[in-house]
């Protein structure tokens, strides 16, 4: 299985606001990790920094022994780092089939082929991936024609089709119906059990995190407040105060 991700002193400022403040974090391959925190805690910004969507103002990010701090997203994807977005991001004009196929073609380095038909490329793999998320029957539909919950699952299928070693899921259940939420939770549980992929879940839905994750990282005001097993976190007084207390 993959390599650990090491984050040292990573900082991001937007004007006067310090969104992520000198975060140190070590993510080992294997356990399903959850990052929680109140709105504005810097969870999503941290993921943006780790995946290359944003550049940090300070600090270092290493994958195994390689420094990936300044790599562009597409280069990090090749090194096994991928993600989904809080606001679903798929190829709306492509069919469901093509959405996943695009990831497979890219993974195989076949984007420059201009003289062969794309349609049959990687068809078996795409079929398997779409069956996994229950979207095979919708393969001919365009991405924009799916329901929100289906789009979420499609985004997950696209992301997994890049064969990430480390995969960040940014609020994978936000905006979906309770039924679809349960489906998504089961799906993540299954995937985490089967695959050679380490998932990191970003959520403000604590119940979901405690339910799924083996390790929980709590962020508050841009910094890591606590880091431990779900049981540790439940008992942590500081966490109760800033986060659990808020909801109670």
């Amino acid at each position: 299985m993959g390599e650990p991700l090491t984050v040292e002193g990573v900082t991001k400022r937007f004007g006067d606001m310090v969104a992520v403040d000198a975060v140190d974090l070590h993510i080992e391959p294997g356990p399903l990790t959850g990052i929680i925190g109140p709105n504005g805690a810097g969870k999503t910004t941290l993921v943006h920094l780790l995946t290359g969507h944003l550049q940090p103002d300070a600090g270092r990010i290493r994958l195994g022994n390689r420094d990936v701090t300044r790599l562009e997203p597409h280069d990090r994807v090749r090194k096994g780092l991928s993600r989904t977005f809080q606001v679903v991001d798929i190829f709306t004009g492509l069919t469901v089939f093509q959405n996943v196929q695009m990831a497979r073609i890219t993974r195989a380095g076949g984007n420059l082929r201009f003289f062969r038909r794309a349609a049959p490329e990687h068809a078996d793999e795409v079929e398997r991936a779409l069956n996994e998320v229950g979207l095979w029957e919708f393969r001919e539909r365009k991405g924009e024609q799916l329901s929100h919950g289906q789009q979420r699952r499609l985004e997950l299928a696209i992301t997994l089709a890049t064969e990430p070693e480390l995969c960040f899921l940014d609020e994978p259940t936000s905006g979906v119906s309770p039924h679809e939420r349960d489906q998504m939770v089961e799906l993540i549980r299954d995937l985490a059990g089967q695959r050679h992929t380490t998932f990191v879940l970003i959520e403000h839905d604590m119940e979901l995190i405690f339910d799924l994750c083996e390790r929980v990282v709590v962020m508050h005001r841009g910094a890591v407040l606590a880091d431990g097993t779900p049981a540790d976190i439940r008992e942590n007084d500081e966490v109760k105060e800033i986060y659990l207390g808020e909801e109670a």
Partner: protein
Amino acid sequence: MPRWVTPLAAIGALAVLLVLPYVVGSFTVYLTMEILLLAIFALGFNLLLGYTGLLSFGQAGFFAIGAYACALILLTAPNLVFGIAGGVLAAGVVALVLGFLCVRLTEIYFAMLTLSFGMMIHSVIWRWRDVTGGDDGLTGIPRAPLEVLGLSIEVSALWQYYYFMVIVTAVAVWLMHRIVNSPLGLTFQAVRDSAVRAGFVGIPVRRFRLWAFVIAGLYSGLAGALLAPLERTVTPVYAHWLFSAEPILASLLGGIHTFAGPLVGAVLFIGIKEVAVRYTDYWMLFMGIVIIALVLGFRGGIVGTIQRWLRWD
């Protein structure tokens, strides 16, 4: 869309083009040649707009480079193969260099940059009198014979050159159809739909925008190269940004989200212009009204609208 539509449309269009000179007068043949030129030009443009999501206002620059390069070659080495190939290649090389700078930006910033570079090419052509003839342009360009593998095919008569253009256009359209349906074409469309998601499946977005830009440049150059021996004269007008509007309008008329849109749009554009010009000097006004009607009433252009009616989308 049923499978038979594309081959049937292709065969039908080719059949009409092949018999046309036997049925209509030479003026209509000439108009058809204008349509073919615009069809190639618009097809390349729409690879950028419809398939990759980049609006270029500078395609006339590459058209003019193709036209001038072809003209200069034919004036010194009268072989049509060299002329056309040279024109295409020159446009492609310039598109590679300017595209490298343009694809750093997107949306309106990309559009403005292409506009500036297009007008820069126009100024160079206008000022570099020794080579380009300045505002007089280049004249007396021969419709040189097509010399390949020891064969010499005469294309000096209008009908001969017409058939040459039909063949070149058919190959260009077929090749573009292969490209948009290939993994490369799929990659362009992925970049169009979401550059961020494209990056996160591992696609180097800027590099593929550049490829689209170069292919569009090659097609613009081809259209320009074909123009030089047809008109036998090239002037800086073809580099002006107003001329960049022609493929844009043709693509909008036909529909940017269908392969056939720019082709049908080229027929409509030349047709409308030809009819309107007979009644008024203000034919652009008429064209403008048609475009407004289309944008308001026929979203997706003529081809897109018809596809929706037939539920083929």
